[in-house]
């Protein structure tokens, strides 16, 4: 039975939730605000909040200097491609772990996750050398594969958790009706796990979109995504905060909008399986 909630408690909870929300959103809001300031206002001390001469000049400069659409396209290909490729491996892997577990399944899962505990820089040189060898430096395909492998443990884990929620009996019933493995995964399991798959996809697109270590290290001119676009606006000598903020705002806008529209799906997917 649901707990009785008093109005007072509701107000406290709501206020608290809003405060936490604003706290988390503050850096993004500050970036967006700064992007409309002049360089001099951006570093003003004490900081200027809302009352300044709003300008679009930074966006104009950024547009003039960089080919935003090229970076954006690279980000879309890399984030989308790595997620799609990851799904092709993660769905069958999670299926086998959830429905035909062996003695070592738990160990394998943990071992997979343990690769995420390794600092990325630890394998930078081996991967860099492999990339040179196979001519993959500064290519979208190279970066897509690396990001796919990096996010794969998370994908398998998430899908495994969702698949575990689906009663094995349903799959058995499908098998009784003569469904093969392919039909079972494609027509029975996938539609049922769709919310879980959707949130896995969203989370991985976001992770790949924001990934900055590999994207900065393995690209130069051709395959550089939006992370490289942002990084190019930091300056060792001279003021750059306003222009950097404009570049950041342009880089996060697509993913922010995607997140906004898929909010419901994302929350549903992330809490799916949390309550038994």
């Amino acid at each position, binding site marked *: 039975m649901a707990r009785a909630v008093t109005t007072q408690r509701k107000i406290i909870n709501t206020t608290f939730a809003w405060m936490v929300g604003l706290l988390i959103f503050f850096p993004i809001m500050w970036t967006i605000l700064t992007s409309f300031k002049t360089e001099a206002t951006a570093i003003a001390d004490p900081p200027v909040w809302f009352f300044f001469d709003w300008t679009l000049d930074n966006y104009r400069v950024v547009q003039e200097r960089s080919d935003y659409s090229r970076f954006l396209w690279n980000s879309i290909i890399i984030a989308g491609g790595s997620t799609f490729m990851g799904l092709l491996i993660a769905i069958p892997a999670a299926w086998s772990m959830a429905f035909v577990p062996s003695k070592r399944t738990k160990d394998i899962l943990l071992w997979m996750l343990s690769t995420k505990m390794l600092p990325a820089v630890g394998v930078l040189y081996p991967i*860099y050398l492999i990339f040179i060898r196979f001519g993959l430096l500064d290519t979208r395909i190279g970066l897509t594969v690396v990001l796919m492998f990096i996010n794969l443990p998370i994908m398998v884990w998430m899908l495994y958790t969702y698949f575990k929620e689906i009663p094995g009996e349903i799959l058995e019933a499908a098998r009784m009706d003569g469904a093969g493995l392919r039909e079972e995964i494609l027509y029975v399991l996938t539609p049922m796990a769709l919310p879980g798959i959707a949130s896995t996809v969203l989370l991985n697109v976001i992770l790949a979109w924001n990934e900055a270590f590999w994207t*900065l*290290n393995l690209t130069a001119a051709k395959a550089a995504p939006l992370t490289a676009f942002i990084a190019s606006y930091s300056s060792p*000598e*001279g003021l750059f905060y306003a222009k950097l903020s404009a570049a950041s705002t342009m880089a996060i806008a697509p993913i922010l909008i995607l997140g906004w529209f898929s909010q419901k799906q994302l929350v549903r997917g992330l809490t799916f399986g949390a309550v038994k």
Partner: protein
Amino acid sequence: MSFRTSLGIASALAIAAASAGHAQELSGTVTIATVNNGDMIRMQGLTADFNAQYPDITLEWVTLEENVLRQRVTQDIATRGGQFDVMTIGTYEVPIWGENGWLVSLNDLPDEWDADDLLPAIRDGLTVDGELYAAPFYGESSMVMYRTDLMEAAGLDMPEAPTWDFIREAAAAMTDGDVYGICLRGKAGWGENMAFLTAMANSFGARWFDDDWNAQFDSEEWANTLNFYMDMMGEYGPPGAANNGFNENLSLFQQGRCGMWIDATVAASFVTNPNDSTVADQVGFALAPDNGLGKRGNWLWAWSLAVPAGSQQTDAAKAFIAWATSKEYTALVAENEGWANVPPGTRTSLYENPEYLEAASFAEMTLRSINSADPIQPTVDSVPYTGVQFVAIPEFAGFATEVGQEFANALAGQQSVEAALERAQALTTDAMESAGY
């Protein structure tokens, strides 16, 4: 078309092709790794001029944050990744990489490029065993930038070549409420506080190593340097100075919060720019201070263009470098953006140009600062290394950043000067021992 017309057209084409000569033979894509600063961005905007001369060379720009650039470029060059054909590197990297055979010699740039016109101090810093390994794009030293109005109000007159004692006296006189007498770098990093402190230490007679590569932080000279710096910053510097690097001090100065600021000469064009600076018409310049020991506390740095040994486009890359660092390029910038915006500090001819001297009030002091820096003999006592604000060995960036952290902690009041020097001595000694010195 008659035979005669065809013949005429054919021969005209042949003459045109022949006269275009060498320029048209070069082709390919040149990938340039660079940092984001005003001069580099301006160059990207002017590449149409380069392409008019070399229509078959495509330029690809990769702009990176300074530390990322350094790491990326080192990684690429050490593994011969061949991702970049031209890289922007500084006077610290050039001697080390040149000696390692990582860079292509630029001794064969065309005569009209005029290597003899380069400022001697800058050229020396980029040459190893007679081979020029990088072409300077812009050069800088450090100098005193001060508020003329505050100086006058304090009843003082800034000499052209002040001493450290005078700087301290002036800092005391100019400190008033929201205005701090002196702003100096405090943020940890070999290129941040350690660039400033190493140059300052040179003028106090201190050095990083003696002739046998023994660390010298236990010397009296280093104690004097650091005590002077800490006392002055503690009394007349801004609060939280341990977090201030170039950009933080620049913004303080531009907002009129600093009486004096000793930093890169390139800052002069920012603080005198009325669009960004509230004190643009009240800034004076002087040489970096000394202590009468024969060395001033100014550094020497040049962002330069070099071709990595792994490049597949060496000739096209050299053609680009020759264009970007030529006198003609300087004239091109002047024509498009005005003389005050040309990249400073690399060529003697620029400082003989009356138009430039008139447009840039800081030009003369910049040139004198650059010329007074001596990368070959940077210290009062002899040392086994070259480099003014750095020691040109590969290990330096690592341990100097750690030493910088100790000094920043001392500035933040987390430890005493003695403790910071002791730890600096210990960690430098350790680093040098493990490096086999």
